[in-house]
């Protein structure tokens, strides 16, 4: 044990991708080196830019240390979009590899390809899907229930920074060391020490652990917020649908994250302490991992999809200018889906040799989920019925979702039938199926929600034109990229295949490649949309805050909202409260009297705890035990120190609240009420003309 050995653990020069690319300059290694270079350069550029612009103080005091649920929500989404860029580029690289590698090794080596599909899956699930939705829920849910913040703002910040820490570890794996090659599900014994001694599976274990810790805390936070922080009169059956889905998602997070924590913890026990939970020898049993993982994994699917269902419920109702059809059915369907999601985990491994009885039980349970899901789709269709549908970007994505999602539902029923699952399990058919659920189910939902709530968050609308261009890329792109995968899967092509051997597959892989490129173009057009929208923001401002003539409480304040959300906590007397306020002339009225408002002060503790745990886990990955101990002690110390702080809240005096509120009411009075057919024009200042 030399000093260097203790200091650096397993880290050597060879761990750097650049060194590897220098020594062994194959295309695959050079691609790896380039990716690492982009990661390092991107980080350096970002730091440099912030330093040159002198924005560190602003960033630190206004954003990073903020405990405001709205800012935390936005930071979640920014983080997720950065991760999405990487994971989508990886997807394109994988498709390119398959398009080229028919009876030749192609661009990337097998080991590199395996890292690509592992990081792609891990990032998309834990660092894109979940943070995107957590961000949306963070921003919207407290506004919808008439609350000033979430129940535990400080814990909210810790959740965010734990998740970001996991993302930092994922990015670090681009530069130092290799990521796991065991896929996003990390099945042992392949990920055990006997088969994979390197840092890869450890990166996976600890990055995922950070995310699952953050998600569990988020779940507790959201559930308590919905239970305890609703404004007076906001009874259960008056909650907006998005809040309902947030609650169900939170409950899923509370119960589904522990199985993942247990699975990764036990795998870590095997790898670090030589235990035998999932090893081949001495009584280990890999089936325990598979069960634990999917006990988490299936509810996770609904964690990723339920909030998007909530978004669609809001968007379809708002852009059909109409009440949501079948509110009660939608609530019941959401709850049923949440409960059933815990009873179907075994359908992820019908092929493990259980008895026909067990497989039948879980197959039927899986099909049952189809009923409430179908009900939801029809509820959205009937919401458009007898309405006035405006084809905004949000609405286009919602309609594309309904059509695309049911196709995924069809293949889902096929996979839920055990004998059919035997045929297509572990093939590209399965890959096509879950992308068919998650791209419309999660991604389209997030885009729809992003377009819908963006004016609320930033005070100006997004470019409609570029939204449509994005739509033209994302929707046909999806079909082109994934329909061929169904065909290839039905032809017996296994998933995670780096090289193909049948030239007849060529047209399909090329179609999929074009689709993947279109999806990348879709992402690019979202960036252009943001850029263009910021440039032309002076013509799209909606300071009054209700650009879409919408119905929930989140539209009843200025855009962007004040940090305390509501000048006066609203009294709710029926569903769609803001809509009825507008109809009954109750909206945009000053309050009788204003009161002092307490908001949480900013705190750096969340950032420090998150980064401390990241240091701890990075230390564990590289066997730098000192770093692990220091990181953990630092986080624990910060948490303890924070518990000694008593002066953690700040009061906004009633006079200031009143002044702000009155200023907004003046803006409102000066604004021109806009009928629906003019909502995309510069005249729209966020004041809707009520048209019945």
């Amino acid at each position: 044990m030399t000093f260097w050995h203790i200091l650096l653990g397993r880290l050597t020069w060879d761990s750097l991708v650049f060194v590897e690319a220098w020594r062994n300059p194959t295309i695959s290694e050079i691609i790896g080196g380039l990716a690492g270079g982009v990661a390092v350069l991107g980080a350096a550029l970002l730091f440099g830019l912030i330093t040159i612009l002198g924005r560190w103080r602003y960033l630190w005091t206004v954003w990073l240390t903020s405990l405001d649920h709205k800012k935390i929500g936005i930071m979640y989404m920014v983080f997720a979009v950065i991760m999405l860029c990487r994971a989508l580029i990886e997807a394109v690289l994988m498709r390119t590899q398959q398009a080229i590698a028919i009876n030749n090794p192609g661009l990337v080596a097998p080991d590199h390809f395996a890292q690509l599909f592992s990081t792609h899956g891990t990032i998309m699930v834990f660092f894109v899907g979940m943070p995107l939705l957590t961000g949306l829920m963070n921003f919207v849910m407290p506004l919808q229930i008439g609350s000033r913040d979430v129940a535990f703002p400080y814990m909210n910040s810790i959740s965010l920074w734990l998740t970001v820490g996991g993302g930092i570890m994922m990015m670090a794996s681009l530069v130092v060391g290799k990521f796991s090659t065991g896929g996003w599900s990390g099945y042992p014994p392949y990920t055990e020490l006997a088969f994979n001694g390197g840092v890869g599976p450890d990166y996976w274990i600890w990055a995922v652990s950070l995310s699952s810790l953050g998600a569990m805390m988020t779940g507790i936070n959201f559930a308590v917020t919905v239970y305890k922080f609703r404004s007076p009169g906001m009874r259960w059956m008056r909650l907006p649908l998005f809040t309902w889905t947030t609650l169900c998602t939170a409950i899923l997070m509370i119960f589904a994250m522990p199985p993942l924590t247990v699975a990764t913890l036990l795998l870590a026990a095997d790898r670090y302490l030589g235990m035998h939970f999932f090893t081949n020898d001495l009584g280990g049993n890999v089936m325990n991992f598979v069960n634990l993982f999917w006990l988490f994994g299936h509810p996770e699917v609904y964690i990723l999809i339920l909030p998007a269902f909530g978004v669609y419920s809001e968007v379809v109702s708002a852009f059909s200018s109409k009440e949501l059809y079948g509110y009660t059915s939608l609530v019941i369907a959401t709850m049923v889906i949440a409960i059933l999601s815990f009873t179907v985990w075994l359908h992820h491994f019908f092929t493990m040799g259980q008895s026909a009885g067990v497989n039948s039980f879980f197959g039927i349970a899986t099909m049952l989920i189809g009923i409430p899901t179908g009900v939801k789709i029809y509820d959205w269709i009937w919401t458009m019925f007898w309405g006035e549908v405006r084809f905004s970007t949000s609405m286009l994505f919602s309609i594309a979702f309904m059509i695309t999602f049911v196709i995924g539902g069809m293949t889902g029923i096929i996979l839920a039938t055990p004998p059919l699952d035997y045929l297509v399990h572990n093939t590209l058919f399965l890959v096509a199926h879950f992308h068919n659920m998650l791209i419309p189910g999660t991604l389209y939902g997030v885009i729809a929600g992003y377009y819908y709530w963006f004016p609320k968050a930033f005070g100006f609308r997004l470019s409609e034109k570029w939204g449509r261009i994005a739509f033209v890329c994302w929707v046909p792109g999806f079909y082109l990229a994934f329909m061929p995968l169904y065909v290839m899967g039905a032809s017996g092509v296994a998933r995670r295949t780096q090289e193909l051997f049948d030239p007849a597959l060529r047209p399909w892989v090329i179609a999929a490649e074009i689709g993947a490129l279109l999806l990348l173009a879709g992402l690019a057009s979202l960036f252009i949309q943001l850029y263009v929208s910021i440039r032309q923001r002076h013509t799209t401002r909606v300071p009054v805050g209700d650009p879409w003539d919408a119905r929930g409480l989140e539209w009843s304040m200025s855009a962007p909202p004040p940090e305390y959300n509501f000048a006066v906590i609203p009294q709710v007397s029926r569903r769609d409260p803001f809509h009825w306020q507008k109809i009954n002339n109750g909206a945009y009225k000053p309050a009788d009297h204003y009161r002092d408002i307490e908001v949480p002060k900013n705190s750096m503790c969340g950032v420090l705890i998150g980064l401390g745990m990241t240091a701890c886990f990075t230390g564990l990955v590289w066997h730098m035990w000192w770093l692990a101990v220091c990181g953990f002690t630092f986080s624990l110390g910060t948490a303890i120190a924070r518990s000694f702080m008593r002066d953690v809240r700040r009061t906004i005096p009633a006079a200031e609240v009143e002044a702000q509120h009155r200023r907004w009411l003046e803006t409102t009075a000066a604004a021109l009420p806009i009928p629906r057919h003019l909502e995309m024009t510069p005249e729209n200042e966020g004041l809707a003309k009520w048209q019945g």
Partner: protein
Amino acid sequence: MSKTSTGLITRAVGSPIRRLRKGVTMGLTVMAAGLLSGCSVLSRGFLGAAGPVAAAERHEFYLVGAVMLLVIGPVLLLTPLIAWHYRLANTKSAFRPQWGFSWILEGLIWIPPTIIVIVLAVFLVDDTVRLDPYRPLSPGLSPLQVQAVSLDWKWLFIYPDQHIASVNQLILPAGRPVHVSLTSGTVMQSLLMPQLAGQILAMAGMTTQLNFAISQPGTYWGENAQYNGAGFDKQKFQVLGVNPVDFNRWVASSRQTPRLLDDAAYRTLSRESVLSQPVTFGSVEPGLFAKIVHQAIRPGYLRQHEDANSHG
């Protein structure tokens, strides 16, 4: 959206589209032709079923697919139709913003799907029991016994009654049921022969089972479908269905092969490697499969990893 703003958008998006239209049309034609010719690959999968199990599963696939098409058909039609008919610009369509509930519609969206799921569930139970991979095909005929061991990155097939073994080649008499016992000599793997039967996992320390048959003599293929490392793509093998006479001839000729599959040979075989050619063993140490299941032989990959670690 008003007429004017729609017009604006059409103009803005429309002009590049018009320019691109010709190219796109041509591209689509070429691609469609390519995809049509590409459909031949489907015959490599279960749609080209060549045995009773895969054929039954294919039949069920068509059935479930047809039922599901009926289910999703209305959504595929109604969604665009209703959205378009009730568009803002269509002033002739009715507008009832307060309408949000109807018992009839509630019945329509809850009850028929429930009935369909019940029907599908009945099929599901029946087919799952009938096509249970553990269930012998025809109780009267004694099946050919095969023991399959998944290794990195190849398949070892032991014929216990014939006392021979082959690697990456499965030769079977057509028309006779086959019973496979599977285990893994390494990580978890999955045996998939798309034209013959559904897949089943192979795991170390335990056995799983698969029953199937080949209807007609012919050449088919199999693979491992569960990722297991760098040689994963190449872990494919040929399945040869031959007539019983040829099968017996093959067994007899294989026995002439001097190669013996014993502990030492297994240790070498279980090192991580990709074989370029199938290998045949003329004799097999009795009870070898049981020893592999009970992990009485130290597999070769462990030694390989220890060597690699001591160098690194």
